[in-house]
């Protein structure tokens, strides 16, 4: 394992601070999704951390996407800052008003302009603004939201799952993916993911960053056990082919007891998250809007 790497100290505080700041207090409008959307429900799901972890695992399997992160991102020195910034962006796009979400997307696109290079593994050039790569990252995220909720959260109906995929297309558009490229149903998403599989491989950078993520150095033994529950959940939620690429052993089938245990670990994590300043208020802002949306007969 290569040294030196930053620790995960402050992961909870920093992602909580980012979360609290990203949920608007006085939004100008309902944003690109709105309180009646499936997207809001998926974002509020207990299984959301599993979805986040799973999507990173999948995203890293695209060599060019991984190369961009590996060569340009500060994840080695500041892994927590990297994760917090990503989750803050997702929260802004999901819960922010249209102007706020658009501004955030423009900032990301501006940064992407400078993320270019050549992947040392495949020898191919890459650019972070390339719609092909952006779409891959997007699809992994959406697919993970579905998979994590289905296994460990509140499963969506087939109709809601389709609605979620369709709603989320705007997120990819905001970053510059042409609308016609973006899968807008579960079936289309599955076709897209299957089609991209020949391009995927586990590069050394993917192996290194993901083993860091799954087993962060410096965690105390007992705490690491709890982290293991959440990480096992992410690995369990992966498609079989992704596990094979990483060389993870095939996990035993998910029993009801194990699912409950994982949800309980997620609950503890959530309780800690709620204890951070501003998080409860941010949650309440979202919940109040969702309740009033469902109360007015939208749902």
């Amino acid at each position, binding site marked *: 394992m290569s040294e030196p790497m930053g620790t995960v*100290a402050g992961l*909870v505080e920093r992602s909580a601070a980012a979360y609290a700041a990203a949920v608007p207090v006085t939004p100008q409008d309902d944003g690109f999704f709105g309180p009646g959307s499936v997207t809001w429900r998926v974002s509020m799901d207990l299984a959301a951390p599993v979805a986040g972890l799973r999507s990173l695992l999948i995203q890293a399997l695209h060599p060019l996407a991984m190369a961009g992160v590996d060569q340009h991102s500060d994840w080695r020195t500041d892994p927590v800052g990297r994760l917090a910034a990503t989750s803050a962006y997702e929260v802004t796009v999901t819960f922010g008003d249209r102007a706020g979400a658009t501004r955030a997307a423009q900032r990301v696109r501006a940064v992407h302009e400078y993320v270019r290079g050549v992947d040392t593994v495949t020898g191919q050039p890459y650019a972070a603004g390339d719609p092909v790569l952006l779409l891959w990252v997007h699809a992994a995220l959406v697919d993970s939201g579905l998979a994590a909720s289905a296994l460990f959260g509140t499963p969506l109906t087939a109709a809601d799952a389709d609605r979620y995929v369709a709603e989320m297309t705007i997120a990819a558009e905001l970053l510059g993916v042409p609308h016609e490229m973006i899968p807008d149903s579960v079936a289309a998403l599955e076709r897209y993911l299957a089609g991209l599989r020949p391009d995927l491989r586990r590069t050394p950078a993917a192996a290194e960053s993901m083993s860091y993520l799954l087993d962060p150095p*410096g965690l105390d033994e007992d*705490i690491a056990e*709890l982290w293991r529950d959440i990480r096992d959940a992410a690995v369990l939620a992966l498609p079989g082919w992704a596990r094979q690429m990483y060389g993870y052993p095939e996990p035993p089938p998910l029993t009801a007891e194990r699912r409950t245990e994982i949800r309980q670990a997620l*609950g503890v994590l959530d309780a800690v998250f*709620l204890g951070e300043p501003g998080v409860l208020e941010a*949650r*309440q802002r979202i919940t109040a809007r969702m309740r009033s949306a469902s109360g007015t007969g939208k749902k």
Partner: protein
Amino acid sequence: MRARRLAIAAVIGGLSVAALTLLRGRRSARPRAGRLRVERGMAAVRLAARGGARYATSAPRLFASAGEHREALRNDLALQTAEDVAATLGTMKGVLMKLGQMASYVDDGLSPAARRTLSRLQDSVPPMSPELAAQVITEELGQPPDRAFATWDPEPIAAASIGQVHRAITRDGRAVAVKVQYPGIAETIEADLGNVGLLRRMLKITAPMQDVDALLAELRERVTEELDYRREARNQQMFARYYAGHPTIGVPGIVPELSTRRVVTSELADGARFAELVTWPQAERDLAAETIYRFVFRSLYGAHSFNGDPHPGNYLFHRGGRVTFLDFGLVKHFTPDELRPLVAMVKHLCVDNDPEGFRRAMEDAGFLMRGAPLPTDMIVEHMAVFYDTVRERGPRTMTGAYASSVTRRFFDFRSPLAAYVQIPRSYVILQRINLGLFALLGELSATADWRCIAEEIWPFVQGPPCTPMGAAEAGWRASRTRAGNPGPFGSIIT
């Protein structure tokens, strides 16, 4: 012998720290993990102990007691379905809250971060929507609230233990407080208590000195009890009957026909909150303190029962020392065998001045290992602080400093006694006298001749009244005896 202390408070302190420490990696090389873990546990214990005696009168509680008004009931966030309840209180959150509630009497001793986590969890529980509360009433009482009661206020007036409190008027015209349990909460919490692995892990992280299994058993028993309101109703009814006619102690009576597993209906009480009491003249505060003191020890020595939650939120105050006692969710009844050594300890130490007798009584109670290689005077010296207020006659002012010293001594795992002292499970709840009652009286800066009052109550002294309140109480006792209703609860039930 392994010290086996069921110091729930310490563990909660630790638990919160554990929760906050979660996922915050430490770059600690861990060649001596065991030692580090012990140090961490000690830090947690110290954290819980430090200033732990100062009562947080304004600190948010994890489930306020009946009658306590919520600052702002967030009706816009109201829980509308049993699924909402499960999402809010399931997956360990309800269990964490119950743990926090058990420790709430030392919540001032927690670090700001730990306290924040616990109080945030409380704040995160919105009230039930009027429809959901009505649904529970219908399921439990067989008819909707507007038929079960003459008048029903659909807006809750308070958060309660795993539920909320509504005002109502019964069909026979009595004003009542109706506590309604969140639907599905019992199943949720029971399922989470079943994850012994996760609970053990969390307890182990921060409480290496504890017997985790005993602690878990205690937690499960307490929480399971509290999930069934019928038990609380029974206890409250017993206290209400025992103190019927008492000059200063009031306990709202239960309306049994409107009380079930998830609904408990009692007479509506009013009065000043603790926060208001502390602004009253000192003489009023002294009287309130005297009533609380009499209630605690009269209940213990007279009714063989202890109401385990001496928290400011559980009282309503009236001028002249009258206090209404509210929450009976955590009551312990003592058998004569359990009580006898406690009485003997007090008697030997405070009345007979017999250190060896005191030591024997401690051993009989199971507090002290028999044959511990410790001189008796050291044991007495260590334990005396707990009896400090009743060893000598004369007026004495309770202070926060005294309460803190009791707490510090209680948590003093470095004392030479630590290895030989333990708290048997049936006495665990009595720690709340040390940790809660003294803190409460200290907060009031209450002055009284506590020894003299204690002598009135001690069954082996039964001294004459030493205050006007004592005289009034003596009159009450005489009338009870005439009415043939003098004994502990056991004799009422049978």
